[in-house]
């Protein structure tokens, strides 16, 4: 007879221990992250909130292997990022995390479908399979009918939904969203949050946001100020 799942200690999808990120701005040393300890278990949505310049985006970039910390240890999906070389970090980004950006960052001369197919192309997925999966993902975000449209022909909300579909392309266990509603009106933002909430039922979604009301919908809210977590 197996043990009930709730009694089993859960593996964290993100584990940070004393993570620091310092950089120089002229003669001044800026402490973007200063001794961050963090443990996030899957699944669910986690919100990171804090004022501008508090280090929340830096934290997200560290977790997503977009940047290397000055010190400390980061483990994501059981992988120690410090131990990975550049090529392995690239593979990690395409297989383990999906990014959603504030400004959507879709490739303007590719259609919605092609944008969603792109991460799969990097991951070596066969072209036919890429197309099939991309259509399924666009269906999921309600944009199948807009598959052949280019970003310039889509509204902000539609573009962000394409970006979310793109983030899910390689079925990553972790989705990182940096101010995903920052460029959207509140109603559209609400829809995006609902979509992220739905996605967070099956994987971990970490959302960086200024918007406290939206953050309250997350299962956990992490406050950060001056590069430190605030309890």
């Amino acid at each position, binding site marked *: 007879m197996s043990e009930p799942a709730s009694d089993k200690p859960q593996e964290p999808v993100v584990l940070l221990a004393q993570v620091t990120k310092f950089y120089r701005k002229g003669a001044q040393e800026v402490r973007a992250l200063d001794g961050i300890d963090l443990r996030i278990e899957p699944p669910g949505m986690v919100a990171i909130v804090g004022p501008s310049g508090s280090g929340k985006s830096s934290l997200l*970039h560290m977790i*997503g292997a*977009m*940047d290397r910390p000055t010190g400390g240890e980061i483990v994501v999906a059981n992988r120690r990022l410090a131990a990975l070389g*550049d*090529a392995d970090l*690239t*593979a990690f*980004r*395409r*297989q383990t995390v999906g*990014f959603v*950006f504030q*400004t959507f*960052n879709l*490739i*303007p*001369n*590719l259609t919605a479908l092609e944008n969603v197919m*792109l*991460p799969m*192309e*990097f*991951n070596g997925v066969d072209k036919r399979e890429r197309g099939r999966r991309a259509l399924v993902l666009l269906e999921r975000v309600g944009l199948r009918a807009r598959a052949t449209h280019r970003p310039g022909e889509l509204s902000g909300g539609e573009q962000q939904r394409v970006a979310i579909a*793109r983030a899910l392309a*390689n079925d990553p266990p972790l989705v990182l969203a940096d101010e995903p509603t920052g460029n959207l009106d509140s109603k559209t933002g609400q829809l995006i949050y609902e979509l992220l909430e739905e996605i967070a039922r099956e994987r971990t979604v970490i959302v960086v946001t200024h918007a406290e009301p939206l953050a309250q919908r997350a299962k956990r809210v992490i406050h950060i100020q001056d590069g430190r977590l605030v309890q």
Partner: protein
Amino acid sequence: MLLLGLRNVFRSKTRLAVAVLLLALPVFLLLVLQAILVAVETHTETLKHNVDNSLQLRARGSMGHVNMEGNETILPQRALKIARGVAGVAGVEHYLLAMTPTEGHNFAMIVGVNPGESRRLESHGEAGNPRIIAGRALTEADRGQRVAVIGQGVARWARITPENLAVATLTLDLKRTHPVIFALERPPATLKIAGIYASGYVFGDLQLFVPLYTFREIYGVPEGISWLFVRAVSADHLPEVEAALRRDLGGVADIIAPIAAAEFERTTTRAVRRFAAIGTALAAALMMIVVFFVTLINVRERTREIGTLKALGASDTGVAASFLAEALVLAALGAAAGAVVFAVVGSLLEGQLFGIAVSPFLPAQYKDALRGALAPAAGLGPSGVAWFLLATAFAACAGSAWGLRQVVKLSPVEAIRHE
């Protein structure tokens, strides 16, 4: 990623058009220079083996005309054998010359020539065969026969026309004199006229060519040579051939070496080669500069996009490859545009260039030949095309190298944060 790079070429139509035009210009210049270089090399190769490689030998201090006052000394027959034995000699032609007085023109020149050899004209040895305008040239069958080919000046004096050529004869009276021509106690000789030629200049048309042995018989010159033309294998062989002839025949012969022509050939080729090399380097540098700036602008403008691609898991080399593909396609389009312009206006430019700029500096005998050979459209062979494609690819790779380095160096987070 390569496909993405190819599609990126057409993202900004205006930029593409400007870049293609800017690339087309140096490509066009490069093609013109290559064509000129190929044409000059081809032509100078011909010059090396032909007309400008001949030395002229005459008896010392004499014009070598058998009946000309004070100029009747001719070369000994052995000069022919000696000249043929010199290393670097491609061929030897020998002539016998005499003068005959004519009404209106003072005198005409009688030339004994081996049928089939060049009908060289006095003072214009490089001119080669003048054009036959009626009848025929001398042939092997005429050897020893009383037959002649005459210039149109002689024909006019003798009232021979194309219409009466079939029955035309001309009698040489060897006893007739002139202040510079002395009489020879030889019987007159009547020659059947086989053809009339036009040389393009007055004195050239006042000559009469007979088979060499017919000349010997008429003028009673069993051996000896008036003029000996010794053709070197190439202009590069001229100095050694001249030295050997001066050593072996300098005591009896004046040797006129076409140093000017050879030097012209050498310096022209060298100058054109340098000009083409510098021009090609400049054109390639211009192409590189255009590709450099276009790539740099693309990288600057698309920095966030580069960051996005890296965030999505594209490798540094993959992203760089897309920019390289873009640069290669851009250079190829520019090259194609330049090639089209070259094909369309190349010949027009050639006409302008050689009609106005270069022709005045070319000796008359080379001008037309060079101009014809230098037509750019005809000048680019398969190796030229291969070279051109390689140069284009090189310009694209070298021009985009700095931009590609920036692409590889960009960290994803720096790129994403780029404003």
